[in-house]
């Protein structure tokens, strides 16, 4: 399949794969920050497990990106030796953990996007994209089930949990629109049937989110509100630099370290 890609399409796909791999990597790093701090042991284990799944998926996406870009780099080098401005993750993934409601709001919006995107990528005309998506979708289905359950439990729980959940949703909402913005080269990939168009994806996402929030007795913010974008161009919020500094410290300080 990859041999048939022309160079413009190939570059667009590398960019898209970095976007997927970086989003998974950063989300994974954030989730694992909860280890040792979660409100309950079961939730700590759950967040670490979700983070682990995402890290595995990141490895698959970044390995494929490395293969296509053909610069002699591997997935680890892409993850640990690129700077903030070269990262292509969604801004929502780098936002700080906050309290448990903040983390679950972020996770729910991310999982709902991830689930619908991977479902569509299972039909990709690129065999490797399809294979990674099919594998990841099984895992992400569980992620979405868990975060959806927490939105309902906290939203339709006590007055305090309801208020915290609503505040968390309102706070993170401005980062959800970016999931459905396309770069200037995405249309090439959509036309080749490698990735889905973002408009129908957004409708599916919004339908799922609105239905869940309604059941959780929460108010869905305005879908036409101002949205923060920039992650796919490497323009990040202040949060990412600190995250990468911690995540990349060891391989940068001790190049080639193994254990």
């Amino acid at each position, binding site marked *: 399949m990859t041999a048939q890609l022309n160079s413009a399409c190939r570059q667009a796909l590398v960019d898209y794969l970095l976007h997927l791999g970086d989003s998974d990597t950063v989300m994974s790093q954030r989730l694992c920050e909860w280890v040792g701090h979660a409100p309950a042991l079961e939730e700590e*284990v759950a967040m670490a*497990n979700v983070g682990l*799944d995402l890290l595995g998926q990141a490895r*698959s996406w970044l390995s494929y990106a490395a293969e296509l870009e053909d610069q002699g780099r591997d997935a680890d080098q892409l993850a640990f030796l690129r700077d903030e401005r070269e990262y292509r993750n969604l801004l929502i993934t780098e936002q700080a953990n906050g309290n448990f409601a903040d983390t679950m709001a972020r996770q729910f919006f991310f999982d709902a996007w991830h689930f619908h995107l991977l479902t569509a990528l299972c039909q990709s005309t690129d065999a490797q994209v399809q294979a990674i998506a099919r*594998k990841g979708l*099984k*895992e992400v289905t569980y992620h979405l089930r868990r975060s959806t359950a927490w939105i309902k439990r906290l939203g339709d729980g006590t007055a305090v949990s309801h208020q915290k959940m609503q505040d968390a949703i309102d706070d993170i909402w401005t980062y959800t629109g970016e999931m459905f913005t396309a770069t200037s080269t995405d249309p090439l990939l959509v036309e080749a049937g490698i990735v889905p168009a973002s408009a129908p994806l957004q409708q599916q996402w919004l339908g799922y989110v609105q239905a869940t929030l309604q059941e959780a007795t929460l108010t869905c913010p305005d879908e036409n509100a101002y949205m923060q974008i920039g992650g796919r161009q490497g323009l990040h919020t202040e949060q990412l630099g600190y995250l990468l500094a911690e995540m990349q410290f060891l391989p940068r300080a001790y190049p080639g370290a193994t254990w």
Partner: protein
Amino acid sequence: MQHTTAAVAASAFGLISSDRPRTLLREDGQRPALDAIWQLLDTVPDPEVPVISVVELGIVRQLNWQQDRLVVTLTPTYSGCPATQAIADAIHMALWQAGLEQIELQEQLSPPWTTDWISPAGRDKLRAYGIAPPAGSASKRTLLGEEPEVHCPHCGSVHTSVISEFGSTACKALYRCDDCREPFDYFKCI
């Protein structure tokens, strides 16, 4: 003698022994039969659940000869399963110990691993080890739908409830038996 002691201890605990003679080495220099290799790999334990083999778990998908080189096709259970590398190493070591030298391990993502590939014998072993095997088949309805009917591996009761969607490893969820009150791991359907 250390090996023998370890083998006895392993069999006493119902674990699979890692003590292997060079059974695949043939004096006539011919390649060993694939059946013999499948049998050998069926003695390689999963590092997390050592009562079940990597073959019973459905991780070994294919064996092929490319001239004198054995190509073993493996599929990971979960994308991020930390045991993936340990499993590949264990398989490589087992084949090497048995006398094969030219071995190539290949990773295959598609079709993705499913708990439907765990053999009936493997399911029985999981249950005997205290892990409830996946209930039903991995259809989308099972993944998204209502809670499956999970039987307690200790007393067999169906009165069980989920404690956490994620357990001690990515492939398991944490359950509790409402009758015998014992907590247990459930091998999730995917």
